[in-house]
Each structure stands twice: as C-alpha cells, then as structure tokens.
C-alpha cells in the first residue's frame, strides 16, 4: 500500500516534470492553438535593446492580444542559438553576416534591412585619459574595451581602425556592445568603441567622442522572421511594424540612420 503510494507520487512527479519541460521547451511559441493572438520571441542585437523594447510596447498596444518577448545579445551568439534550434520567431541582427548565417542554415529567408548605425568613442564622463579623437585609442596608456571580433560591433570597430590607420590593443574583448558601454560607465576603461546610438542612449553616463564621417564605418541591420516559427503572422506583423513609418520614427529618434 505504502509502496504503491510512493510509486504513484514518483510517477506523478515524472509526469509533471515531463509536462513542464515540454511547456518550457516551446515557451517562445506556446499558445499556438489560440488564433486571437500569441507570444512571439524576438532575438535582437544588444544595440537594439532600448529601441526594440519601446517598439515591442508600441506593437503590443497596436495589436491587442499579442505579446512580444525579447532576447538581447551579441548577433553572433543569437545567430548560433537560432541555428541550434532556439525558439525564436524574429531575428534582428546588427550585421548582414550574422543574418546570412541564419539564412544559409535554412532558418530564415528574405531578410530586410531596417536601420544603419555608425561608431562613436565612449569615455567616462570625466574622460580620465583625455581622449579627443579615435586616434588616441592607439596610445598605450589608454585602456580600451572592444567587442569580441566575431560580434558586429567588433567587426565595425576594426574597420574604423583600418580607415584611420591605427592599431589598437584593447585590455578586454566584451561579449556585446552593451557590456563595452558598461565597462565605460563603471570607469574600468578609458574608452570603448560603441555605436552612436549607445552613446545617445547612455545620456550623461558617458561622454561621446565623434568619429569623422571619412573615418567612420557603418553596419546595416537586417530583420527576418524565422521559418520554424509557430506564429508566422504575428512575427511578420512585428517585422512590418519595425519597417513601418512608426517603427522607423522610434529608430531615427534613437540615432539610427535609415538603411
């Protein structure tokens, strides 16, 4: 009798575990039965954190019943997660290269560029190393944080250095652009290479040092729906919203340029 109870409890526990695991496994695309609306998961480049959070709220207001969840991170990491089967419905990358990875893996098709971004040097507000131009980053005394070389912000920064003709030896290679910004805000480094939009979003927490147009480099932001999405129509609606005048207005206000 007692043994039976134990078995029953064990079985119930196993069943519950099974249920919850299958539930969480498809959390990004659950509630597929209800046609009224769904939850979509948008994988977006870290540099889109501020704008996409705002766009998500606006989209939810415009589409009652739909919910947008975000996973922000380095485009290279997000594309790797998507090709490994992460439950994304939309991917917004900070560079075409990372979108190409996803497209060539057959996980997305027909990406469209929705924004463009350029680089700026961010320093702590008091600018301890007196950085006045991007050339100062080549100085040995200046501690610089960059993105990892496979992350778009690392790729674009390398292009800028090539344009200027300097070699920069960073003290740290951060996982994404927001963590470069965090090191600058904390005052751990003297300068970091971030996007124009990051300096703008950080407000008074960092000081921006502009890079001349001739030296600067830019990156295009493509967006696409993911083929395996169980919420294709909602995903497409969100993508359309990003490309719509309302979406473009939010992006432009944050410092992004039109593609």
């Amino acid at each position, binding site marked *: 009798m007692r043994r039976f109870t134990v078995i029953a409890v064990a079985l119930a526990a196993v069943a519950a575990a099974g249920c919850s695991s299958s539930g969480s496994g498809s959390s990004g695309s659950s509630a597929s039965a209800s046609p009224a609306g769904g939850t979509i998961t948008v994988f977006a480049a870290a540099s889109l954190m501020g704008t996409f959070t705002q766009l998500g709220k606006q989209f939810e207001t415009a589409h009652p019943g739909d919910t947008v969840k975000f996973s922000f991170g380095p485009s290279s990491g997000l594309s790797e997660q998507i090709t490994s089967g992460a439950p994304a419905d939309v991917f917004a990358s900070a560079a075409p290269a990372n979108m190409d990875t996803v497209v060539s893996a057959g996980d997305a098709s027909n990406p469209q560029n929705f924004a463009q971004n350029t680089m700026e040097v961010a320093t702590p507000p008091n600018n301890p190393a007196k950085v006045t131009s991007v050339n100062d980053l080549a100085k040995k005394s200046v501690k610089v*944080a960059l993105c990892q070389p496979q992350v778009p912000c690392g790729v674009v920064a390398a292009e800028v250095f090539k344009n200027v003709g300097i070699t920069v030896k960073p003290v740290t290679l951060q996982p994404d652009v927001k963590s470069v910004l965090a090191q600058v805000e904390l005052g751990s480094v003297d300068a970091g290479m971030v996007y124009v939009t990051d300096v703008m979003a950080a407000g008074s927490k960092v000081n921006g040092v502009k890079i001349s147009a001739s030296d600067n480099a830019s990156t295009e932001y493509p967006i696409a729906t993911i083929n395996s999405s169980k919420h294709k129509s909602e995903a497409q609606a969100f993508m359309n919203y990003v490309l719509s005048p309302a979406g473009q207005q939010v992006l432009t206000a944050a410092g992004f340029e039109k593609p």
Partner: protein
Amino acid sequence: MTVAAPSHLTARERARRAARGGASRSVPAPLLAPALIAVGFLVLPLVGLLIRAPWGRIGAALSGADATQALILSLWTASASTLISLAIGVPLAWVLARSSFPGQRLLRALVTLPLVLPPVVGGVALLLAFGRTGFIGRYLDDWFGLTIPFTPVAVVMAETFVAMPFLIIAVEGALRSADQGFEEAAATLGAKRMTVFRRVTVPLVAPSLGAGAVLCWARALGEFGATITFAGSFPGQTETMPIAVYYALETDPDAAIALSLVLLLVSIVVLISLRDHWLRGGSLS
C-alpha cells in the same frame, strides 16, 4: 571513457555491499525509477558531448593559438590561486577550528559565503572593491598606478575568491575531527606551537588538505562568472578555458566541443585523484 566509469563504480559498489553482508542487495522499485532518471540526466549530456566531438580534427581545433593560450592561462592561474588558498586559507581554517573568540561564527559564515554566492555577483563585488573606481582599487590606481581588472592577477583573484572556501571548509572539518592527543603529546614533549602545527597538525590532516586543494583547484579551473565580470576577456591575458569555450561556441562549435573535452578529461583526473585521497583518509582514521 566516461561511459565506462559509472559501470566500473557500480561494480565496485556492488562488491563492497556483498562484502558487507549484502543486507540490501536489491533496490526497491520506487527508488530505482527516479534513480535511473537521475543517472540519465547527469550522464546523457556528457554522452552528447562525446557523440558530437569532432574526433577527426580535435588536434587541429586544440592547436589553435587561442586554445593553447587559454589552456596555459587556466592551468597556471588555477594553480596560483590554489597556492594562495593554501598559504592563507589553511591558517584561517586553523583559526576557525582551534581558537574561539566573539564573532567567530559570523566570521565563518562570511568567509564561506562565496561557496553559495553566484560567482557573477562575486565578480561584481570584486569590481566594486578592486576595480579602477572601486573603494580600494581607486587608491591602487592613484597611488601606484596599478589597475587590477583585465590582468591575469584579476583572474587569480576571481578564482581565489570563489575557490578558497572549498579548501577552508575541507581543512577546518578535518582539524575539528582530528585527534588532538598527538598535538598535546608533542607540546608536552616541548615542541613549540608552530612546530606542532608543521610537524603534527599538518601531517594529521594531510589527506583532507590534499582533497581540499584538489577541489579548490578544480573549482578555480572552472571559474567563469566572477572571472569574466572582474577580469574581462582577452586572449592570453584573461581568457581562461571556460571563457574560451563560451566564445568558441559562437565562432567554431567544433573547437568549443574539443576544449570542453579537455576540461572533461581534467575533471575525470581530478575525480580519480580525489577518490585516492579520500580512500587514504579513510584508512588513516
């Protein structure tokens, strides 16, 4: 290799039980099912690692400059943090085990806190203390021009912060349970306190000291959260094996798997050496 290890252990376990008299040779069914699920849950991921391993090009994946640098950095920083833990953690373990003073329990709680603290929180704490704008780091920077973050020193500090409590706990426990009769005898025979500590106490707890040091080293080797938060990441400077694995997954998954296999191999060696220590510890007491 890993697949063989558990069955080898169960065979040994079975033999030991049989030798004991075989009181409970059969496992009750209600325990067996969940136990099997637990085994599957713990072992299957490792099987996944072995199945996906790029056996053909492991050598190529590991011979990359970044992988070699990361391995060398990890090995020496983990060893350095273990040596530091031995030098300052063992005396602290003695203080906690053998002396009594007000606030001792609070002190023990404080110094073992990193055991349960999420490592990334430890990294943030280290950054706010020893970072360039931290309340200690600020003066190091102003007075001596020393900046700790983004250097191998920061890696060693992060690893020591997270790993030393393992050694302290192991040694303190051994000191508490060790027979103090030998120490008293040595003292009666005229040995000075430091001599007693060196010649009697340390040899007495040597097995636990060894096990604690190996655990401490293994924990330091695997450190990720505190290291990447406090020391950042740069190949050859602060990019340790776990961090290299994390980034390699984005660029070269095969390399990430190959690096993971190296860490798995090291872990197995650690486990084997620990078993040895524990067995010797058992035979001594």
